[in-house]
């Protein structure tokens, strides 16, 4: 199967935040360093997915694990940033709920040749919900420009990516049944938004955590 050039661009975009994060490693605090490590993991993940794809091995398990890690790391960042106890409790509860959903899916429903709609969609839904609240919380307590805050770029990147792909992911298996060409056509949405999200993540490393 021929992989579109846009997919390669999307794959390479995962290395941008990892590279910027590592380059600016000394300027990051411990929380942002965790996010740098997550970006490095994402770059590694996309490389392994590419190799597995070429070898004809299933990549759904990897993708699900990446989704879990992404949600936990981003919610942890929001939790550390917020000073609102109710929001912090909501974030903590969301993480626990998602981990339970993820483990249940892993135990009972995970399919290696299909998109795990429950895990992927619920993860994106939680990311959208928590990112909207995190950005609102950020603007509420901000005393300077929010564009100088890394959480703004992470939140904006996450929300744009998760919201833009939630429908395609939810309908992924139906589209796949219609044929690979249809799937590739719709997956351009995912690739495009991935590039935007990765550029936003990279931008976050140029800000100072306050």
């Amino acid at each position, binding site marked *: 199967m021929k992989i579109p050039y846009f997919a390669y661009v999307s794959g390479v975009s995962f290395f941008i935040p990892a590279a910027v994060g590592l380059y600016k490693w000394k300027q990051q605090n411990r929380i942002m360093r965790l996010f740098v490590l997550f970006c490095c993991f994402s770059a590694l993940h996309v490389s392994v997915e590419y190799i597995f794809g070429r070898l004809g091995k299933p990549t759904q398990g990897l993708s699900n694990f990446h989704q879990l890690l992404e949600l936990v790391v981003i919610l942890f960042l929001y939790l550390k940033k917020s000073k609102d106890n109710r929001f912090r409790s909501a974030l903590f509860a969301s993480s626990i709920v998602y981990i339970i959903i993820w483990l249940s899916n892993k135990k009972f429903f995970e399919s290696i040749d299909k998109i795990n709609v429950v895990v992927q969609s619920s993860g994106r839904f939680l990311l959208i919900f928590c990112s909207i609240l995190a*950005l609102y919380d950020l603007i509420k307590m*901000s005393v300077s420009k*929010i*564009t100088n805050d890394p959480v703004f770029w992470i939140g904006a990147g996450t929300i*744009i990516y998760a919201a833009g792909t*939630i*429908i395609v992911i939810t309908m992924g298996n139906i*589209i796949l049944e219609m044929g690979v060409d249809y799937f590739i056509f719709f997956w351009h949405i995912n690739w495009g*938004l991935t590039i935007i999200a990765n550029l936003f993540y990279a931008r976050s490393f140029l800000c100072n955590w306050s």
Partner: protein
Amino acid sequence: MQLVLNDTLTVIVLASIIIVLLVVSYVGILVTSNKRIFYEQQKKIDEITKSEKRYKALFETSLAGMMKFSFAPFIVFEANRAILDMFNVITDYDLQRVLSDLPNGQTDAIESALKNKGVIEAFEIEFPTTTGIKRRFLISAKKEETENLAHAVVVLMTAEKLFG
């Protein structure tokens, strides 16, 4: 292969585009309102800084003695040059030592008046300087709303020249 977009697929594409546009609008509104809030805050800070500078100059050059202090316990936080000269002291701490131990219970009188009424108006105090000359002052002070802090203006009544 020729792709045929039926209604369902068109809805998927349109819905995704609409959601992305909504999210981008949300982020845009946040940034714009943050910029506005930041601009307003900056304007207020500039005004406060200007006003603070004006009053600081007035405070420092005033011929009347001025100070900011806590009356329970008696601590002088800020005093201008004039009040230090009036009491013949050099530092804020020296002034605090003098005022916290005025003779004839005058310190207690100031403290209780501020505690009870929140204000003292033209209260007369007498203070013997180290040179032996007794100086008499009129002190007016007003308590701040929340804490035991007050601002005071002190005028020298004794007919002697302190400056120049």
